[in-house]
């Protein structure tokens, strides 16, 4: 059996490639085949869960660019998702524009709103910036609730997504739409981190004073990070709107914003795979506790009163996250990196 003793690059193209070896290609193709054939072996419920994961992933990638790469703490991400969702709803429902216009419009409007709320980042950072983004969350939700065009407290209907004559009615067709956009977003984020912009973000995160001395325009790059992060949030919001079909401001709670920060921390801040791991971990954990564990406990311990097991869900959810942060504070991406290193060096791990 021949084992690799290293990957050598013979030209710049090879050095820059994301997928560098045959093994990478095989694994990537296998993963894509598994993902895109999922509708063949999953029912609507699990496809729905995967759609939710895909939408959440797009938003989390945006937050990871903003927080993980550029170091600008945002705790109002659900608010920016709401901007995208309502923009798509207004464009496609009230103005009867095509889905793609709504989708791009959602990203752009959300990105622009992100720039507005990102302006304080020029002067403040850390916890102070976090407070301004919390304000964004509350201001956005207040406007949504009180602006007649959004349907206010009553909410607004959103039609099915459609491109040309193709209407995405079924869960599986929506799955393909969401997954393709999510894959493109992952690819974009992975590449962004390797560009001049990505390096500027990382420089600002690590030491903004040093970055400025090196010639990085702080105002430009911080606002660009807000635009890109919120653009992704807007795209996720638009997809969520078309997937759920009805919007109400209560769907974009402050708790949801905090959960997004939790996802990228658990996944691994400032890594391209971190949001993927974090989102899958949190969403699957939520589903397993709600759909599997509680019904199992209820049906097993029938001597207890009905509903006794519900308290288990929030307790276990909190416990798992706390244990996770204690035992693997650098996130699942770090565990993944360790695994890859061990694989590469096997059988000489040390």
């Amino acid at each position: 059996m021949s084992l690799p003793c290293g990957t050598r690059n013979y030209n710049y193209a090879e050095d820059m490639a994301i997928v560098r070896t045959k093994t990478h290609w095989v694994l990537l193709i296998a993963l894509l085949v598994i993902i895109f054939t999922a509708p063949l072996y999953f029912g609507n419920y699990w496809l729905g869960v995967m759609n939710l994961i895909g939408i959440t992933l797009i938003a989390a990638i945006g937050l990871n660019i903003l927080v993980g790469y550029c170091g600008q703490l945002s705790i109002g991400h659900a608010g920016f998702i709401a901007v995208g969702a309502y923009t798509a709803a207004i464009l496609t429902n009230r103005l009867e524009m095509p889905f793609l216009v709504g989708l791009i419009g959602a990203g752009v409007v959300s990105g622009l709103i992100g720039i507005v709320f990102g302006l304080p980042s020029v002067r403040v950072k850390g916890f102070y910036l976090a407070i301004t983004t919390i304000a964004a969350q509350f201001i956005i939700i207040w406007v949504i609730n009180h602006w007649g065009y959004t349907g206010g407290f009553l909410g607004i209907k959103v039609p099915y997504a459609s491109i040309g004559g193709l209407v995405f009615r079924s869960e599986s067709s929506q799955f393909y739409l969401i997954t393709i956009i999510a894959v493109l977003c992952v690819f974009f984020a992975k590449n962004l981190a390797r560009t001049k912009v990505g390096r500027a973000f990382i420089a600002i995160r690590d030491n903004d004073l040093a970055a400025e001395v090196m010639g990085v325009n702080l105002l430009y790059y911080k606002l660009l990070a807000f635009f890109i992060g919120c653009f992704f949030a807007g795209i996720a919001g638009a997809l969520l709107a078309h997937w759920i079909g009805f919007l109400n401001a209560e769907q974009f709670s402050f708790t949801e914003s905090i959960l997004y920060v939790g996802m990228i921390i658990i996944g691994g801040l400032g890594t391209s795979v971190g949001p993927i791991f974090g989102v899958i971990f949190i969403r699957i954990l939520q589903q397993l506790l709600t759909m599997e564990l509680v019904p199992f406990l209820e049906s097993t311990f029938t001597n207890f009163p009905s509903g006794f097991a519900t308290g288990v869900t929030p307790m276990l959810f909190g416990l798992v996250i706390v244990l996770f942060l204690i035992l693997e504070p650098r996130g699942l991406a770090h565990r993944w990196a360790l695994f890859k290193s061990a694989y590469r060096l096997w059988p000489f791990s040390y």
Partner: protein
Amino acid sequence: MNNKRLIIAVIICLALIVAALPFLSACGGDKEGRTLKVGITTPTTGKAAEKGAPMGHGNLDCFEYINNELGGVEGYQIEVVWRDNGYDAAKVATIVKSFMDEGCLLFTTSSSAMMTASMEIANRAGFPGMAAFSSPIIYRPPQHIYGQMPDYGDDFLVFAKYYMDNIWKGSGKPKMALHLLNNSTGAGARDAARAYAADLGIEIVATEEHASTTTSEMESLTRIKALNPDVLYISSTPAPTAVVVKNAYELGMFPGITIGSGHAGFTSALVDIAGADITEGVYGVFPTVNWGDDVPAMAKMTEYIKKNHAEDYEKKNMDYITCWAQSLIVAEILKEAVNNAGYDALAAGDANSWKALEEQGIQKLKDYDVGGLHGPVSYTAGDNRLSKSVRVFQVQNGEIVPLTDWIDAPVVKYEEFDWFGK
């Protein structure tokens, strides 16, 4: 050689088991093992747990009673798929999809917010749903979602009419202030006021909003106090309603003005949180009877709540009653559907079964008496509210005491108003 024999023996055994399966299933009764599946979701955890938990208990206890003591529906056991949604919109969307996937014939939610978050998924698929608490947006215009009881707009209309007929003794138009939860619970009352307050002879002088997490409304009530209203109407959940009532008491507004509450906030939890002395004299509307009332279903319901959830009984929780009644209505719908469409039409739990259940079950409901727990349940074409009646109550000596018999709330076609939903 031994292995070969073993494999042959295993294959023969498996073949025998497979062949015997039809006979084994035939050994049971004709309807044994055949169930009618329903999906129930309640916010048993999360920020609405004070209402969601007892509502879930009411649902599940009632199905236990129906299955164990009544033998199910027409001999078929009701299989309940129950999920806690944690008052989380994303979670409830996947829960409703799971109900559809698992072959449920209909689903119920307790809160209007959770129904709002999931209703379009159900409407798109033609999957019938029923919300215990509802706001007009859920079924105006009517589709596949039904309201168990009158909505928050109906509460306002009944209370306002009662106020004008029985409480208001002054001359001219009474001045009313609204204090509303910043979601569909408050919006329902606001829209009803916008549509009919003038017709009822009431002047709305202020509309204030609060969040479900509010801890003080001194500022908004100070603004209201300056307008010298005669009556304050609150449409919210118990905890914020308690805050508003307490703050009105502390500002010296109440007693003095009349306070009325919609049904989402008017439960024993309101009296517990705000205190019996402070809530004394507060009016409210509620679409069910209270504990201890002399109605046919009370004895069995009391037996189950004492057995399974004594803590709800000690608090005299009326939300439990609501969802016990909801489960009875679900059973009646299933009964109508089995009788009119037949079990086989429902067995698949697919789109055809949902259509059969809706047309041959829900839409066949006619004056169904929920053991007297709330008003009669009927389907009327163009009106997806199943029960249309509420009663006016008042807090007297720490108890919620009924003042009226059932009062029917009128049908309001909100979609005909230009401003509705805009």
